[in-house]
C-alpha cells in the first residue's frame, strides 16, 4: 500500500498532495423491545486524494483504488479551479510511523456474533423486566475496526488502527400518553471488554425511565443551574468548543474579533482544555488525519481565551502553532478542524458548595442532545432535580437549557473538584461528518440565569 501511495504522489503537479486510504469492517446489532431488530455486517474500502494549488483545495474520493495517480491529477485539476493567492500549510516534521492499535483485551473481530447478540440481549432483558411500566427498549451494539493509511507529498507516511465499540441502552416507560426514557451508553476505542459488565447501566436506564413517569415537567423560566459532569462536558464541547475551531474563525474578521486571544471569557476559575493525546480518551489519536501529533491545548485559562484548535491550513493563516485537530470521520471526507477530548478543568468547590445557597434552582443531569448556532446553544438534559433551599429536591423532566454562550460562560460562578469523563457512545457532527468519537469531561458546574424551556 505504502509504495503504491508514495509512487502515485510523485508528479501530481500540486503544491501539496496527500492520499488517505481506509479499510473498515464492522458489525451492528440492535434489539427493539423483546425482538432483535437488525443485525448486519459491512466492509468498506475507500480513499481520498487531496491536492492544494495556490491555496485552493481539490478533492477526489473513491471506492475504486485503481489508478491513484490519475485521481491525484484530477484532484490537482480541481484545485487549480480554486487556486487564488499563495496558500500555505504550517510546517510540520516529516513522520513515518505505524501506530499500533490501542490495547484490546478481546479483539471484537474474533468474538462470535452469537456472543455479541447474547450480551446485548441480556441487557435488553434486564431493562424489559425491571419495571411493569417499561414499554419498550432499544439496545444496540456496534463495533468498527478502521485502518488508516496516509501518505503525503512531503514524504510523510503513517498507518493507524482505530477500533471503536459502542453500546447504547435505552428503556422507554409509558403511562397512558406519557412516555419517558432512560438512556445509558458506553463508547470506547478498545475491544469487546467495553461491551461486557454493563448490567448496572441497563438497570439504571430502566429505573430512570420508570421514575420519570412520575416526575413533573420543569416549570419554564430562568434559574441558577448546576450541570452534572456529563452536561458540563456537552456544554464545553457544544457551546464553547465549536467556537474555538479555527476554520470557523480564520477568514471571518468579526468572528476573529469575538474570539480574540487574550480576551476575558469567564471568571478566573474557568479553564477549558482540548487534549487529543490524553491516554485512553475516546477522541485520542497519536496523530491527526494530516499526520500532525495531537497535544493538550488550553482554550480558556484563568478565564482568558488563550488558544484554539487548528489544522495545518488554519494554523498557517493565523500564524499560530498546529494543534493536531484535523480529523476525518471516514475515507470520503476531508479532514476538518475537530475537537478531540474536551473538558472543563476541576475547581476547588464541593458539590454541596454549589447547591448550598440556592433558594430555587435546577440540578440538570446527563445529556439527551445538544446543538449550537454560534452564540446560541440549546441542550437537553435527560432529567433533572429541582434545588430547593440548598437541597436537591424532586425529579423533573423535559429539561431543555438555552442561552447565549458568551453570557453563560461569564455566569459560571462555581466549579466543583469532581472532574468526570463521559464514556458515552455519542459522537460529534460537523460539516456533514458524523458521528466522530470525542471525549467529554467536566466537574459539576454552576451557572446563574440560565433559561429553561418548558410549558408555562
Amino acid at each position, binding site marked *: 500500500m505504502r509504495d503504491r501511495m508514495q509512487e502515485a504522489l510523485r508528479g501530481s503537479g500540486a503544491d501539496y498532495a496527500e492520499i488517505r486510504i481506509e479499510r473498515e469492517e464492522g458489525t451492528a446489532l440492535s434489539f*427493539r*423491545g423483546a425482538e*432483535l*431488530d*437488525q*443485525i*448486519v*455486517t*459491512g*466492509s468498506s*474500502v*475507500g480513499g481520498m486524494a487531496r491536492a492544494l494549488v495556490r491555496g*485552493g*483545495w*481539490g478533492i*477526489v*474520493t*473513491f*471506492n*475504486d483504488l485503481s489508478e491513484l495517480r490519475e485521481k491525484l491529477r*484530477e*484532484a490537482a485539476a*480541481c*484545485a487549480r*479551479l*480554486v487556486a*487564488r493567492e499563495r496558500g500555505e500549510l504550517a510546517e510540520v516534521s516529516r513522520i513515518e510511523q505505524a501506530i499500533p492499535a490501542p490495547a484490546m483485551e478481546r479483539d471484537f473481530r474474533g468474538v462470535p*456474533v452469537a456472543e455479541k447478540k447474547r450480551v446485548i440481549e441480556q441487557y435488553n432483558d434486564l431493562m424489559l423486566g425491571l419495571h411493569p411500566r417499561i*414499554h419498550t427498549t432499544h439496545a444496540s451494539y456496534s463495533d468498527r475496526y478502521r485502518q488508516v493509511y496516509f501518505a503525503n507529498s512531503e514524504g510523510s507516511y503513517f498507518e493507524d488502527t482505530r477500533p471503536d465499540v459502542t453500546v447504547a441502552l435505552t428503556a*422507554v416507560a409509558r403511562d397512558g*400518553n406519557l*412516555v419517558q*426514557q432512560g438512556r445509558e451508553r458506553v463508547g470506547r476505542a478498545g475491544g469487546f471488554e467495553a461491551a461486557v459488565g454493563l448490567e448496572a447501566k441497563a438497570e439504571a436506564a430502566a429505573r430512570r425511565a420508570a421514575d420519570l413517569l412520575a416526575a413533573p415537567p420543569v416549570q*419554564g*423560566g*430562568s434559574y441558577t443551574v448546576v450541570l452534572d459532569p456529563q452536561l458540563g462536558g456537552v456544554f464545553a464541547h457544544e457551546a464553547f468548543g465549536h467556537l474555538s475551531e479555527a476554520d470557523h474563525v480564520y*477568514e*471571518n474578521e*468579526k*468572528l476573529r474579533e469575538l474570539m480574540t486571544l487574550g480576551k476575558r471569557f469567564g471568571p478566573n476559575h474557568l479553564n477549558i482544555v482540548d487534549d487529543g493525546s490524553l491516554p485512553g480518551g475516546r477522541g485520542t489519536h497519536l496523530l491527526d488525519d494530516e499526520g500532525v501529533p495531537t497535544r493538550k491545548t488550553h482554550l480558556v485559562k484563568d478565564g482568558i481565551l488563550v488558544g484554539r484548535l487548528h489544522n495545518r491550513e488554519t494554523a498557517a493563516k493565523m500564524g499560530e502553532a498546529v494543534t493536531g485537530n484535523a480529523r476525518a470521520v471516514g475515507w*470520503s471526507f476531508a479532514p476538518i478542524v475537530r475537537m478531540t477530548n474536551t473538558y472543563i478543568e476541576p475547581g476547588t468547590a464541593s458539590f454541596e458548595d454549589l447547591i448550598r445557597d440556592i433558594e430555587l434552582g435546577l440540578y440538570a443531569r446527563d445529556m439527551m*442532545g445538544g*446543538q449550537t*448556532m*454560534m452564540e*446560541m446553544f*440549546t*441542550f*437537553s438534559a435527560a432529567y433533572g432535580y429541582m434545588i430547593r433551599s440548598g437541597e436537591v429536591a424532586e425529579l423533573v423532566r*423535559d429539561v*431543555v437549557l*438555552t*442561552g*447565549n454562550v458568551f*453570557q453563560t460562560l461569564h455566569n459560571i460562578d462555581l466549579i466543583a473538584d469532581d472532574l468526570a469523563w463521559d464514556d458515552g457512545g455519542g459522537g460529534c457532527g460537523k460539516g456533514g461528518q458524523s458521528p466522530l468519537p470525542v471525549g467529554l469531561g467536566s466537574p459539576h458546574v454552576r451557572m446563574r440565569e440560565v*433559561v429553561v*424551556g*418548558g*410549558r*408555562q
Partner: protein
Amino acid sequence: MIERALELASGYGPAEITFAQGRSTRAEYEDDRLKQVGVAQGSHLGVRVIVDGRLGRASATDPREAEAVVARAVELAEFGSEVKFDFPGSAVAPQVKTYDPEVERTPKAELVAAGAEMLALVKAYNAEIKVGAGASWSVGERRLVNSSGLDLSDRGSRFTIGVGGVLVRGTDILFAGHGRDWRTKGAAPREVAARAIAKFRLAERTADVASKPMPVIFTPAGSFVLLASLLMGVNGKNVLKGDSPLAGRLGDEIAAPGFSLSDNATVDYAPASGAYDDEGTPRRKVDIITGGRLASFLYDLETASKAGAQSTGHGRGGGASNLVIAPGDTSLAELVKGTAEGLLVDSVMGLGQSNIMNGDFSVNVSLGYKIEQGEIVGRVKNTMFAGNVYDALMRVEAVGSEPEWIGSLCAPPLLVGALSVVAQK
C-alpha cells in the same frame, strides 16, 4: 458478478442483491471564497438473504467481494430477525422522471460560476455578510435483482445549489440562507440568492418578545418542527411496535380539517422520486392525512408482513420520499396581516432533543420573526417555544396558498394557534 451472487445466495433461500454506484462533482464556497472543488466516485453492494425464515444482511463497497458478502449474510441469518415476507417479483410501476442527462454534463467551471454569482449577489446586498455557497451534481445507477425474478435497473440525477451567510454584530450572530435541490438543472442562482437576501432583509431589525402563548406561523422550512414527530408517528414499524401515538388511529381526526399530507415519489424530477423503492416495490402516491384524518402508515416489506399490511413502497425502514402538504387558500401576507401578535418561524434548533416520538418539542428559534399588528417587525433572539405536535396539528388554523419545495418537502406556510413562548431577557 451480480448474477453469480444471486445464484449463490438463492441456494440458501430467498435473496436480494443490490449494486449501486454513483459519481458527483461539487464546488464549495466558504467565507466569501471558493474553498474547494471535489469529485467523488462510490459503489455499494448489498445482500439480503432469508435462511429458514431469518434475515441476514451484509454489505461491501467492492463488488468483487460479492461472494464473501453473500457468505457473511448467510452466516448472520442464523442470528437474524424472523421475517415473513418474500421479495417482490416484477410489477407495473409508475412512470417517473428521475434522470436528466444534462446534469452530469455540467462542467466544473459552471458550478464554480453558479456559486460565484450567488455569492456576489449576497455581498452586493450587504458586504458584511460572510457568505457560503455551493453547487453540485450527482448521478447514480442501481441494479436490483432478487430470487423472485425481479431484475430492475434505474438511475437518477440530482442538482443542488444553495447560498447562506453569517452576519455578526457584536455578540449577535445571524445565519440565513436558501437552497434548491432538484433532479434537473432548473434552479437559477439569481433566484436562490434573492430568497436568501429576503431573509436577511427581514432580519435587519430585531424585536422583543414577551414570554406568553402566541400563534406561530411556520414557513415551509419551519414546518419540519411539526413533521419530524409526525413522520416517526406514521412509520409502520413504530406503529407495529406500539411506540407511535398514532397506533390504532387510522381514520381518526388527528389534524385540523384543512391539513392534508401525502407522500409522493411519483412527482417528476422531485429529489426523492423514483418508480421503485429500495426493495424493488413499485411506488405510488400515498395519502397520509386527508382532511385531517389519518389515512395511512408507511410500510416496508418486513414491517408490512408483520402488520398484515402491504408495503407502501417505503423500503427499507418506512422512511418518507417526497412529502407534500396540500396548500390552502390564504397567502402568507394575509396570514401575517391577520396576526395581532405572534412569531414567524423559519428554522429552529434543538429539534429532536425532547420526546420526539410523543410529539413533544421545545426548540430555540434560530431564524424567526416577531409579528405585531399584522406586520413583521424584526427578528427574535434568545426565544424558545414549546408544545406537542399532535396538539398543534389539531390547531392548524390556516394553511398557506404558496407551497414551496425545501429539499424533498413541498409545503405551504402553516398557522398554528397559540404555542408557549419563552424569551430570555
